[in-house]
């Protein structure tokens, strides 16, 4: 794929060609952020809840080995089959073998960012298995043959007219009709048949409870429940970081999750799966895929506290104006930018730089991940490891030379001021990325140093 080779800046440039769409995208996500604020401000103990959630997650990560084995033991006692997968290949092979065992080449899947990360759909397609994403937003991007651009709002980058045209082709809705109600209803009718006939349903996992061996799946549409309760086999894929110690800890996390995500007080459905239905099967696949490595990185392990609410994306001035696809990673936005370099530092070297470090992400994070600090720390590691772009490396070593030689620094300052006053076109041109969308400032006649020396002489 050629698009893979383009970095965040280049992909943002493509997104920014349509200014009207960028503004619409920006405003839509800011509206979601405002709904989050309203919901959060309605809970007086909000800050205490964030602090508690963060501390519970910290504790869980510090005892993760034991919580994983306890969870496994309890889940097995509950009649659930537990599988372990080190990476994408292992996970996807387990899913394939379960489908083969069930004798079917058709699967239904509710939202699971983990399976996006593991490229499950593409793998199954190569094996002749058809997967249908049952969440409306996910179905839209699946029919468009694109990845989701947001972890909670997968099709947020698409306008209703585009979805109307898409559904006209695939679901036979009237041409030119872009009424969200009509389109949703068409998808509902179409998906009924999928729910009623497919034998295997895969869901994600929002929380896994060590003490009881149960897991919780949250949706607004009811698609995870429709799939899981109608299928013979329910596969639940989860990262090792989904664990929490006790059932009553769910109170803390369920109070935070949806208020942070969409501003609703709770998702429509928060389903707790403990045992399979009589004669049916539940399989849990516990996936590592780099998480145990991230756990060992002291500066970055807090990223594993993430509960995937998407609040950091909705608030991010860069995400809102560059779109989710510019992050070329299954998880976009600030959280994606601190998770991705752990998986492939070279491939995702650009992402920690796709930020203004304004810190808004850290301020809205329901589990208080220090996202902007981690972005800053990743930048240093990426440069040290030699993954910065050649232009950035050249600029940095140039800066290093100038800033560590006072004589050079003074001369460069003088030259810079002269250029800005007498020949601004030398700096203000399209080769200077800082000039994009900005006017250069009026250059002062003298530097502070020169001014200070002159004034001091006058007043002495």
């Amino acid at each position, binding site marked *: 794929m050629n698009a893979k080779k383009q970095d965040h800046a280049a992909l943002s440039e493509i997104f920014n060609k349509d200014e009207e769409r960028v503004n619409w995208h920006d405003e839509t996500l800011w*509206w*979601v952020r405002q709904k989050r604020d309203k919901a959060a401000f309605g809970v*007086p*103990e909000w800050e*205490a809840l964030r602090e508690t959630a963060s*501390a*519970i997650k*910290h*504790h869980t*990560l*510090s*005892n*993760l*080995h034991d919580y*994983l084995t306890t969870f496994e033991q309890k889940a097995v006692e509950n009649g659930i089959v537990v*599988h*372990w*997968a*080190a990476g994408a290949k292992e996970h996807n092979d387990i899913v394939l073998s379960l489908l083969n065992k069930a004798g079917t080449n058709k699967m239904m899947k509710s939202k699971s960012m983990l399976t996006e990360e593991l490229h499950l759909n593409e793998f199954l397609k190569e094996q002749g298995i058809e997967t249908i994403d*049952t969440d*409306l*937003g996910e179905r*839209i991007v699946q029919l468009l043959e694109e990845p989701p651009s947001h972890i909670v*709002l997968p*099709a947020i980058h698409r*306008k*209703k007219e585009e979805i109307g045209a898409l559904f006209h082709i695939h679901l036979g809705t009237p041409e030119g009709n872009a009424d*969200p109600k009509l389109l*949703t209803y068409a998808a*509902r009718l179409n998906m009924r048949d999928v*729910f*009623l006939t497919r034998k295997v349903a895969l869901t994600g996992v929002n929380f896994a409870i060590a003490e009881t061996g149960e897991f919780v799946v949250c949706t*607004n*549409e*009811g*698609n995870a*429940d*429709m799939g899981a*309760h*109608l299928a013979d086999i329910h596969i639940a894929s989860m990262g*090792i970081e989904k664990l929490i110690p006790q059932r*009553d800890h769910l*109170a803390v996390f*369920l*109070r935070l999750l949806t208020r942070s995500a*969409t501003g609703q*007080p*709770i*998702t*429509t*459905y*928060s389903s*707790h799966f*403990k*045992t*399979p*239905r009589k004669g049916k099967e539940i399989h849990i696949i516990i996936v*590592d895929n780099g998480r*145990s490595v991230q756990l*060992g990185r002291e500066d970055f392990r807090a990223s594993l506290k993430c509960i995937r609410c998407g609040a950091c994306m909705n608030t991010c001035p860069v995400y809102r104006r560059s779109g989710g696809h510019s992050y070329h990673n299954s998880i976009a936005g600030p959280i994606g930018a601190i998770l991705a370099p752990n998986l492939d530092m070279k491939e995702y070297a650009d992402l920690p730089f796709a930020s203004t470090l304004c810190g808004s992400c850290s301020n809205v994070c329901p589990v208080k991940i220090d996202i902007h600090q981690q972005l800053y720390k990743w930048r240093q590691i990426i440069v040290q490891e030699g993954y910065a772009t050649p232009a950035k490396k050249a600029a940095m070593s140039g800066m290093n030379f100038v800033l560590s030689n006072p004589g050079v620094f003074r001369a460069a300052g003088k030259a810079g001021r002269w250029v800005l006053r007498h020949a601004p076109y030398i700096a203000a041109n399209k080769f200077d990325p800082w000039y994009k969308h900005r006017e250069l400032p009026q250059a002062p006649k003298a530097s502070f140093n020169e001014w200070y020396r002159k004034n001091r002489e006058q007043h002495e």
Partner: protein
Amino acid sequence: MSNRDKILSAVKQNQPTLVSLPEVAQFDKYFTESITEFKKVCEGIGATLHFTDSYESIILLLEEQFATARPVVTSIPELAAINSSSAIFNSPQEYENIELVVIKAQLGVAENGAVWITEADVLERALPFITQHLAVVLHKDMLVATMHDAYKLIGKDNYGWGTFIAGPSKTADIEQSLVLGAHGPRTMTIFIMGTLL
């Protein structure tokens, strides 16, 4: 080494020094188990609320509100009269054409309008999802203020499956326009039992 052992040994090696599990604080009672608050939140998320003091009045209301909704299935013995048929369903798929399901809710949460239902309250796990319309009966004494209170009541209950349901199924996946009735019920009605208003 198996995948399991590989993952567990990497986790053990990389996990940080053990820190203690925090206590979840007893927050000041900002939220209360107030029925008016519960009603307000429920209506905010698209549900309809009725106060009632008898199953007879629930039947009357259902017959009025869902006059044309057939078939109807209920798991509440006191409402057996509204069951459209006494047929036994052998698989959840057979509930495909159900229009209205009426079930008992074990508790309701004032802060978010959610009601708690477990396998014991439904004939099939799919039932509250596959139906076009869902109605639940909740006793007024089973209203709690927050999710913390809810889990205190749920305690160590040994359900096989349980769920919080907050309003009708919904989506805003098309341009953030809220549409009620995604893949689950298109409406939700809550009867609060034991109130005379």
